[in-house]
């Protein structure tokens, strides 16, 4: 029984990682940049959504507010920071998004303070009862997992089946060729950032009930989501979700059956092994030029 508890707990915590990893993948797909500020943007929009929730008392309205705020914040970061920086190498862009993260966290600390704020869950977080016992998996966990899977399916359809998706992929993959083929590249890149911002915002609102809302409460997800996205192959939505949930499972089982302190070491070893065997990530679609 305990084994299934560890399993279910791992899936639930893994889907949270996967959700944030999706946003990272979207930004990477659109602009070939790893957005360290993603968790900061999600935190900021969750604070805004919380204010809306307190004002209206309507969870759905607060979610919509978060999605809009996420898109706008994504566009702001894109136009003010990333577009000018994009022509530089990776280090400059990483540092710039890192600067945005620090600035967002400092502003949030100034505006809302550091005490944890409650964002009530829309569904019950008490586990399901079945076979005469309570399982560590609730309607809330189903919601998070469901939204994660749904988003991936939806985004996959958009990217592979619609012309908009194709234009976005083309713009990111080879802007010059895309521009020559008549794609408005800058619009597509901006759209990518807005989309990623919205997904991050959804993630923020969804996980806020368990993570609570503070300027730093999503920090840990940055590291996990980034690692997961890298192993999965930064380009791959399916990879992000598969490895997000996989990582959740591994961490849960390791801390369940050995010492908790081993969990991060196992994660580190898995990261190194994966990159050693699959330097471009497991689910990478293409191989960039290598010598």
């Amino acid at each position, binding site marked *: 029984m305990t084994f299934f508890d560890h399993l279910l707990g791992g899936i639930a915590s893994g889907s949270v990682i996967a959700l944030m990893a999706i946003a990272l993948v979207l930004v*990477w797909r659109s602009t070939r940049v*790893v957005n360290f500020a993603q968790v900061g943007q999600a935190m900021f929009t969750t604070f805004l959504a919380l204010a809306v929730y307190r004002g209206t008392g309507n969870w759905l309205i607060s979610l919509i507010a978060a999605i809009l705020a996420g898109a706008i914040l994504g566009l702001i970061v894109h136009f003010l*920071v990333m577009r*000018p*920086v994009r022509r*530089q*190498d*990776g*280090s*400059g862009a*990483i*540092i*710039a998004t*890192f*600067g*945005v*993260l*620090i*600035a*967002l*966290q*400092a*502003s949030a*600390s*100034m505006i809302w*303070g550091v005490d944890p704020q409650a964002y009530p869950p829309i569904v019950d977080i008490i586990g399901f009862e079945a076979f005469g016992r309570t399982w560590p998996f609730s309607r809330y966990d189903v919601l998070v997992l469901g939204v994660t899977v749904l988003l991936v399916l939806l985004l996959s359809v958009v990217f592979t089946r619609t012309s908009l998706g194709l234009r976005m992929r083309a713009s990111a993959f080879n802007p010059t060729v895309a521009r020559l083929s008549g794609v408005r590249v800058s619009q597509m890149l901006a759209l990518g950032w807005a989309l990623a911002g919205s997904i991050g915002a959804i993630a923020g609102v969804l996980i806020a009930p368990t993570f609570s809302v503070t300027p730093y409460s999503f920090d840990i997800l940055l*590291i996990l989501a*980034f*690692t997961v*996205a*890298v*192993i999965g192959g*930064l380009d791959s939505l399916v990879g992000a979700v598969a490895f997000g949930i996989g990582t959740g499972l591994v961490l849960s089982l390791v801390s369940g059956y050995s010492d908790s*302190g*081993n*969990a*991060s*070491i196992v*994660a*580190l070893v898995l*990261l*190194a092994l994966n*990159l*050693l065997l699959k*330097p*471009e*990530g497991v689910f990478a679609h293409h191989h*960039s*030029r*290598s*010598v």
Partner: protein
Amino acid sequence: MSMKIPESIRELPGAFFLRNAIIVSAVAGVFLLINTQLEPTYSFYLAQAAMYATAMFGMVILVGLSGQVSLGNGALMAVGAYTFAITSMNWQTVPILGLPWNAVWSVVTAGLVGVIAGLLIGGLGARLSGPYLAGLTLGIAVGLPSIIYRFPSFLGGEDGFALRVPFPPGGYAAQDGGEVSAADAAAEEMSNEGFEDFLAEAGGDSSEILEFDQEELATGETPLVEDEVLEFDQDELSLEQESTPDLVQDVDGESPPAEISESEDSFVDLVDESAGVIDLTGFVIEQWQASLAVVMAAIVGFIALNLIRGNQGRIWKAVRDDPVAASLVGLSPQSNKVSAFVISGFFAALAGAVMAQIFAYVGPALFGLTLSLSLLVGVILGGRSSLVGAMVGAAFIVVLPKAMETFAQQLGWEDRVADNLPNLVYGLLVVLVVLVLPAGLVGSLMVAIRRRTQR
């Protein structure tokens, strides 16, 4: 005539090194001179800046010349710092040579272990491009503390090692070993005895008839077994403590009673004798720390200058700019990427050895992700392919937060705003410099000068 001689001198084999040595010594000399005139805290800032610069020289080679991203050089510093601490605490003699161990050997060992760590990470990362390498190095930086937690007796665990600076010939003494030494046991016994006396005093009068304070016990649900209970009364205790003859007080701050100043282990005594942190020459410990850090930075800077201006620097650049062309002329991109990691591991470990000495402490909380990111921020802001840029970047990450703190406090704004203002400005400045001066402060200045001279 006068034009020809320098030309021929420049072609002599040693001239290249000599010129670099003169440059480095001159720069280091200026800083050492400045150091003698600084207030202790500013010397400590200088020590830190020199320590960061030492690690950033490696980042210049890794990020600037060889074009790799690393978010994990803080972990390489940790490797150096821990090697330094552990060898100087535990090793008595140099293996094989049999010489007595001292701090220099610890520094050398730290550098060597840093080379090995750089080789490992570089080897793992050689096939990885930009973000994948960033992911690997980030994982290492974040995963490091959990490794330290895993081996508390060997690596000091969460609390780390406090070190005594400077070194006795056998190395540092551990301040916080896991084992209980004879002296500790004695001290504990002593405090145990004192406690028993104290209990005897408190319970001495009331051991036959125990009187509970009603108000106190009214709240309790579990009645206590009477004969095991002692009663303390604060008013009585303070009277007792006051009347205890050997605990004479020095309330009015005049000359202390003789028995206190003669007591062997009293803290009071220590305060008195070592109050001055300065000897007659006025050379304080912070200045010594800064000198140490500057000298290490100079040594590492000299190596870096020779590498960058020499053949290897051109090879790294060639591999970075066009790996295909480089491999066509027989330069292996992978081995040259690894060599950049090895060099940066070497430098970072030496910086870590300095860090262990200027902080007199080694622990996982020194080597968080912040450190690794600061190293990258510093090198990008200063100018990624210039050693001077690394120095400016090091000064930037040490001085800027301090300056902002002072500034924010003077504004008299609400605490919540004033406390977080330095972080906000730091974040915005990082973004701004990357946007406005993409080649970094020094790099952009050089570009501007070059343009002006070309015109």
